């Protein structure tokens, strides 16, 4: 009998909208009752949502938080087109067909407990989820750098956890992570008060430069965000000799590995290959997808 460990790993459920809150920059935080997904979800995984019965395809969105006890999950998304526009009209009590959790999660290595989490824009959700998982799991000590060019979907507060080597202007933090005891700082080029003025990678550079060599050998980088940001993070990790995992996006149809519609070209020891972002990813080793110039 052949081993088929992939079977029955993704649930299909009618998720009930618990709440949907609007934030500046057309962002929404959507909370759904989806007990099967909430139970199994791991940081880096996503759900494939039927935003509206009128649309032929589902939409992939990363899981930001999962509460197995309450049976709920939380998503953060930006309204960018028809699917997300229709999703934003969904009210509490309505149901949405949800497939999830899907994909390979982040795989942090215990010998590198200094996890550097870098999230840009709507790449924030998997970083929040990963921070939550790592703070509960010794020996990890995550530090998060979050960037946005639209107002952050939370109120900024003065950072409570001191971090060496950062410019003084990087003084604000995301309250949720701060409350969890996860040090974090914010970056933007929009001049928001308390935020570092520049790219997330520039701020990360400051942090890495301030670590001694032994500490740096304990760093592993995790990132999710727009493609140019991920390329810059991959480059940063390469220059500092750090392992790095990135979460990618590509247009999807099935979301479960059936159509090969969502591929990204990767480098493997056997040469180039096309890997599916939905089930082979969305998390990939940065050096597999961002090649040195």
């Amino acid at each position, binding site marked *: 009998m052949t081993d088929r460990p992939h*079977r*029955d790993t993704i649930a299909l459920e009618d998720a009930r909208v618990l709440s949907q809150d609007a934030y500046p920059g057309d962002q929404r935080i959507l909370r759904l009752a989806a007990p099967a997904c909430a139970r199994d979800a791991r940081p880096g995984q996503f759900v494939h949502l039927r935003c509206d019965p009128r649309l032929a395809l589902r939409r992939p969105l990363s899981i930001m938080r999962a509460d197995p006890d309450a049976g709920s999950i939380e998503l953060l998304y930006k309204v960018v087109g028809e699917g997300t526009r229709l999703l934003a009209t969904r009210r509490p009590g309505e149901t949405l067909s949800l*497939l999830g959790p899907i994909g390979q999660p982040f795989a942090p290595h215990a010998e590198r407990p200094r996890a550097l989490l870098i999230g840009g824009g709507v790449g924030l959700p998997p970083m929040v989820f990963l921070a939550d998982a790592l703070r509960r799991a010794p020996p990890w000590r995550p530090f998060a750098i979050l960037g946005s060019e639209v107002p952050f979907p939370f109120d900024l507060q003065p950072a409570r956890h001191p971090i060496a080597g950062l410019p003084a202007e990087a003084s604000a933090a995301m309250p949720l992570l701060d409350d969890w005891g996860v040090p974090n700082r914010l970056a933007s080029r929009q001049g928001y008060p308390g935020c570092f003025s520049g790219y997330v990678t520039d701020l990360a550079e400051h942090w890495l430069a301030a670590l001694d060599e032994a500490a740096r050998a304990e760093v592993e980088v995790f990132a999710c965000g727009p493609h140019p940001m991920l390329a810059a993070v991959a480059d940063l990790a390469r220059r500092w000799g750090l392992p790095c995992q990135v979460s990618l996006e590509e247009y999807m*149809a099935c979301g479960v*590995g059936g159509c090969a519609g969502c591929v990204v070209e990767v480098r493997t020891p056997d040469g180039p290959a096309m890997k599916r972002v939905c089930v082979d990813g969305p998390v990939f080793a940065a050096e597999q997808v961002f090649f040195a110039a």
Partner: protein
Amino acid sequence: MMTSPATDPRLAIDFCGLAFASPLVLLSGCVGFGEEYTRVRGFSNRDVGAVCLKGTTLAPRLGNQPHRVFETPCGMLNAIGLQNPGVDHVVERILPGLDFAETRFIANVSGSTVEEYHEVTRRFDDSPIDAIEVNISCPNVKEGGVAFGNDIAMSAQVVTACRQATRKPLIIKLSPNQTDIAGNARACLEAGADAFSVINTLMGMAIDSERRRPVIGNNQGGLSGPAIKPIALLKVHQVYQVCRPHGVPIIGQGGVENGRDALEFLIAGASAVGIGTALFYDPLLCREINATIADYLTRHGLERVADLTGTLCLN
């Protein structure tokens, strides 16, 4: 509890001598190499009569650059570019992992030359695969890239070459991108086709007006989903006129998304009904479709689903 085909013998059909537990067939390119959808809890290959595997070529192919899929009104475009690991890998590494007790598995053969079609078919002939579907919509590299399936003579050549390579049931998948699909079917039948799949996708384009570029990496792609259903129904009806005297069955397909759609294809002349794009938003819809068909048989006093095939009364 939904009716499952295993418990409703009225849904079983004989397809070219193969026992299908249900007239439903999962379509090539939508379910990978047969195991991908089993990731979804509640999904079972047992709910369908057969599963068509992804298009397979002689050598491995990387396929097209992204984007490969894009939603369009009532459907989608795809241009995967036949990404597959090559026929030897499929036969030696993938087929042994499939559970042939669950359903029938049908290979889907593609090629750039008549010789490639022949060779891929020959290798599948020497495998446990239940039947071979030939996708003749591929570009003929020796004729400037025009699709074999859009030309009657070239279609017949491919069928002849594949027929020489196998005694397994040979299903020819007809392209809608041609003027005389019935004439093509006739030529394929004479060349040795045992059955037809009707229809493959229609070629289309989506344009990003801001960038003034096609959205699809390959510029053009195949249109599938509910948008093509009326076209598919007419083509099935037309091909059925050719098939009926010979008792040659058709797998009707194109935009089926519920039980009523499936019934329409059966009435138009299909013996089996393919499900592709609709799985992408409802992975579990086959059970529901089986139940709808079973209910229809009861309401119309029919003993078996085969009694419904080609029962269309024209006005």
